[in-house]
């Protein structure tokens, strides 16, 4: 394995092999992944577009067409496409890429399939870190395709600057059921497969829900019919996505999102580091079984144990300073 500093250097130069390896490192977690992120921490440098929606809605097929149009607005496009891992074997078939394969070979398009690896919420645990890797590699647009989701799996909203919810006719009652959920997800609603019957009816229903929900708001999510088969509506979608981008940059919403993400990064790092530090100082691995034994025999309680740890810990830290 090459040295991490060397890989970081190459990532910053935009080397594809290094970027691909870098994503694997953050996916696998551990010290190498952390070392890498330490070298290339970035936040807010790229514009991040989340594409979510039920299984088979046409997310990947849409992204395939969107990429062409986005080239007028961005220099380099990265796609992170997430598919579910099998909860039984841990394996996965990553099938999103097939729909975008025509872009392979384009030096300004990078496509990476990621397995969810047990993470719930429609994305992989390492998606956030993978975004940082491609962002450091100079991709100014990062598109994240989620696992086909229900209404509870909306983690992508936190990572993305703009989230597009793709819906398709035939969902019927599900739309009604999603009513409360979907408003929080979509900055834009794309009604794909508009070549199919019932698509207008769906658009009307969504319009009705959106109007109701955004009655008093400055921004009203647009509802855009598209058809991948007929190559219709793609330009409209790109235009409205860019409009949303401009809206969040203008109003400071973007700045707030970035700060929230930075806060998240600090919090999770702090939590992990503090935990490591404390475990080391209280000699957790050596002692835990003894504590369990004490409580089991009725000689102590978890509260008493924590209290004594707490007191000793304060002394320890003082000594260290």
């Amino acid at each position, binding site marked *: 394995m090459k040295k991490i500093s060397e890989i970081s250097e190459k990532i910053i130069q935009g080397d*594809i092999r290094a970027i691909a390896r870098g994503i694997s490192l953050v996916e696998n977690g551990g010290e190498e992944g952390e070392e890498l992120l330490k070298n290339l921490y970035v936040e807010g440098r790229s514009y991040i577009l989340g594409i979510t929606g039920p299984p088979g809605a046409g997310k990947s097929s849409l992204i395939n067409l969107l990429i062409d149009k986005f080239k007028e607005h961005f220099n380099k496009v990265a796609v992170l496409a997430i598919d579910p891992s099998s909860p039984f074997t841990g394996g996965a078939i990553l099938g999103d*890429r*097939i729909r975008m394969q025509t872009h*392979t*070979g384009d030096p300004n398009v*990078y496509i990476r399939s990621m397995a969810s*690896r047990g993470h719930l919420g429609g994305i992989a645990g390492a998606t956030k870190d993978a975004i940082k890797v491609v962002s450091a590699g100079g991709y100014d647009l990062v598109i994240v395709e989620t696992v086909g989701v229900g209404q509870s799996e909306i983690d992508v909203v936190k990572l993305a600057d703009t989230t597009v919810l793709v819906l398709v006719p035939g969902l019927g009652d599900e739309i009604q059921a999603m009513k409360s959920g979907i408003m929080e997800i979509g900055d834009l609603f794309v009604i794909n497969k508009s070549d199919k019957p019932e698509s207008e009816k769906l658009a009307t229903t969504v319009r009705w829900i959106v109007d109701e929900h955004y009655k008093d708001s400055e921004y009203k999510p647009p509802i855009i019919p598209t058809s991948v088969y007929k190559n219709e509506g793609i330009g409209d979608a790109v235009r409205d996505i860019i409009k949303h981008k401009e809206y969040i940059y203008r109003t400071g919403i973007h700045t707030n999102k970035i700060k929230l993400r930075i806060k998240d990064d600090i919090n999770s790092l702090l939590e992990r580091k503090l935990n490591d530090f404390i475990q080391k100082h209280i000699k957790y691995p050596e002692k835990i079984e003894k504590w369990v034994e004490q409580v089991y025999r009725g000689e102590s309680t978890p509260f008493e144990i924590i209290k004594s740890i707490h007191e000793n810990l304060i002394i320890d830290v003082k000594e260290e300073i």
Partner: protein
Amino acid sequence: MKKKIRILIAKPGLDGHDRGAKFIARALRDAGMEVIYTGIRQTPESIADTAIQEDVDFVGLSLLSGAHNVLFPKVVEELREKGAEDIVVFGGGVIPEDDIPFLKKKGVQAVFTPGTSIKDVVDFINKKMNEKN
């Protein structure tokens, strides 16, 4: 966490027989691997580019049309040219026994013909994975 094995199953050339490739893809998923499938009609160059972008450990080629002697070595070459010779290339499909020594000489590290058990494929992958580390 143990490193996940990532593998690309690819169909070079014009051959449309995709049952075997899909069968292998599912079997490897069931063996706990992360499998990317390219779909049919890929050029050796796009297969190599895909392998690099996806940072796979292996590329498994599937061909039933008879063009393996040209296309399999071409994928190996493309990977080498792009500085990714550490990615293991192997293959399967309707391939005469007599062609296998030639393919191996060209850097195709194993060939699995109709009727091979999936266990043999998984064993090969695990063995190569151990050699890599």
